[in-house]
């Protein structure tokens, strides 16, 4: 709870720094906090990753099981993304079914993956109309230090990049990698007092009026976008963020290529 009070006291301080074009932790406006991605951290999962982005800490597990396809896409696998803001991760998270914040986060992570078509869903079909692979992406947030959005998204992509289709377990031959054909990268910006900055810390997030998340693919095109928060943005601000996000995504994508 004390964290909350400190955050409150920091608000003015951060705001005042912003005016001087500075951030509390000394970062440049387009600079991310330290990002550490470890993969294969959960051996019961078909793919997994632990992401530490500054003080934020998430674990993503990918479980893959056979299931029935949707009637309108009989020859395509299914992606289901779930994210829980468990009370272990923050004094302000509560037990119970996911609320709108968690649902929004899960759906934006999901769209970043789905809309970038980074997974070739047609290769997740075992028997058309009958059996396809169901890919469950479960994001477990352990410590909320701000910008869960990007940490979750990085974790999901990293877990997928190392995930295996468990063919052997279901007598379908040898295990094979999940058919990934792109590496979408989500970049989140906030607007505070007219300034735009990337990768908000918890304190920055708490005083920002609005967030904009832009997911771009390795061709540098936009796959998904989400504004979250009450403060309006101008077209100029949005265009500025999109340009910045596409550049920053290229830099972050390098991290995935060495996984």
């Amino acid at each position: 709870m004390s964290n909350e009070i400190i955050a409150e006291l920091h608000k003015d301080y951060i705001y005042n720094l912003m005016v001087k074009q500075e951030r509390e932790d000394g970062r440049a406006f387009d600079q991310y906090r330290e990002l550490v991605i470890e993969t294969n951290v959960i051996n019961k999962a078909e793919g997994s990753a632990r992401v530490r982005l500054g003080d934020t800490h998430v674990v993503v597990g990918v479980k893959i099981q056979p299931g029935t396809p949707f009637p309108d896409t009989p020859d395509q696998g299914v992606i289901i993304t779930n994210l829980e803001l468990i009370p272990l991760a923050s004094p302000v998270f509560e037990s119970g079914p996911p609320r709108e914040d968690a649902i929004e986060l899960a759906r934006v992570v999901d769209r970043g993956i789905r809309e970038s078509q980074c997974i070739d869903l047609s290769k997740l079909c075992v028997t058309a109309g009958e059996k396809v692979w169901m890919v469950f992406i479960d994001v477990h947030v352990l410590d909320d230090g701000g910008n869960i959005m990007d940490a979750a998204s990085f974790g999901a992509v990293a877990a997928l990049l190392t995930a295996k289709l468990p063919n052997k377990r279901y007598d379908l031959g040898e295990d094979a990698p999940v058919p990934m054909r792109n590496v979408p990268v989500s970049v989140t910006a906030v607007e505070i007092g007219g300034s735009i900055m990337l990768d908000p810390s918890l304190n920055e997030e708490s005083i920002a009026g609005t967030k904009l998340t832009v997911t771009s693919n390795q061709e540098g095109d936009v796959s998904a976008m989400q504004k979250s928060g009450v403060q309006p943005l101008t077209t100029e601000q949005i265009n500025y963020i999109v340009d910045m996000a596409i550049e920053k995504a290229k830099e972050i994508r390098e991290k995935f290529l060495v996984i």
Partner: protein
Amino acid sequence: MSKPEKLIEDGIRIDVRRADALRHIKIEVGVLNRADGSCYFEFGGNKVMAAVYGPREVHPRHMQKSNSAVVRYRYNMASFSVEDRKRPGPDRRSIEVSKVSREALEPVIFQEYFPRSAIDIFVEILQADAGTRTAGINAASIALADAGIPMKSLISACAVGKVDDTLVLDLNKDEDNYGQADMPIAMTPDGRITLIQMDGHLTKDEFKEAIEMAKTGCLAIHELQKAALTEKYSAQMEGVNNEQ
């Protein structure tokens, strides 16, 4: 239906619109008796009813804010509004749509005028045809005005999409199903964007063009919204126009 071979032929879309044309819009203001404000809105095949209650007491109490009204938005699809019957009750999609729709409207509501009270916005989708969230926001914006809630301006919303590599305004259902991108936007009449979401594939240049296209669409809708309100409240509208 399965994917049509072409969604655009000679610049004309399957519903005989040009790329930058909106679908037919029909607006009825103040159609419900119980609600403090209401609006029935048709947007192509979308049929949407919005109602506003408030400012009124907040239940449960712990949701009260001491220095402003709390705005709540419930987007709900009728079971019969879609091809395959929808189970009644909120699902993850409708919870997200409710959230971003609320955030699209909050910036123009003078919430600080009504501490400890609630402004409740209910949007029912009676028939769905791509664009229900933007139809809902357009309707809700009018219902707020009809309820006499003090607002800085109206909010107008529409989507831009990409089909057959062409940017088009206000996607219909087939364009939504088989298109390459969908980007709903809501904005104030002076161009401040209060909602933007996107999925699919847009190059950076397409994106920038798309956002301009959406602006044009929103401004056209704004004129229709004003006209509908003016028709009902020719006298009272004076004040609202001045505020804009």
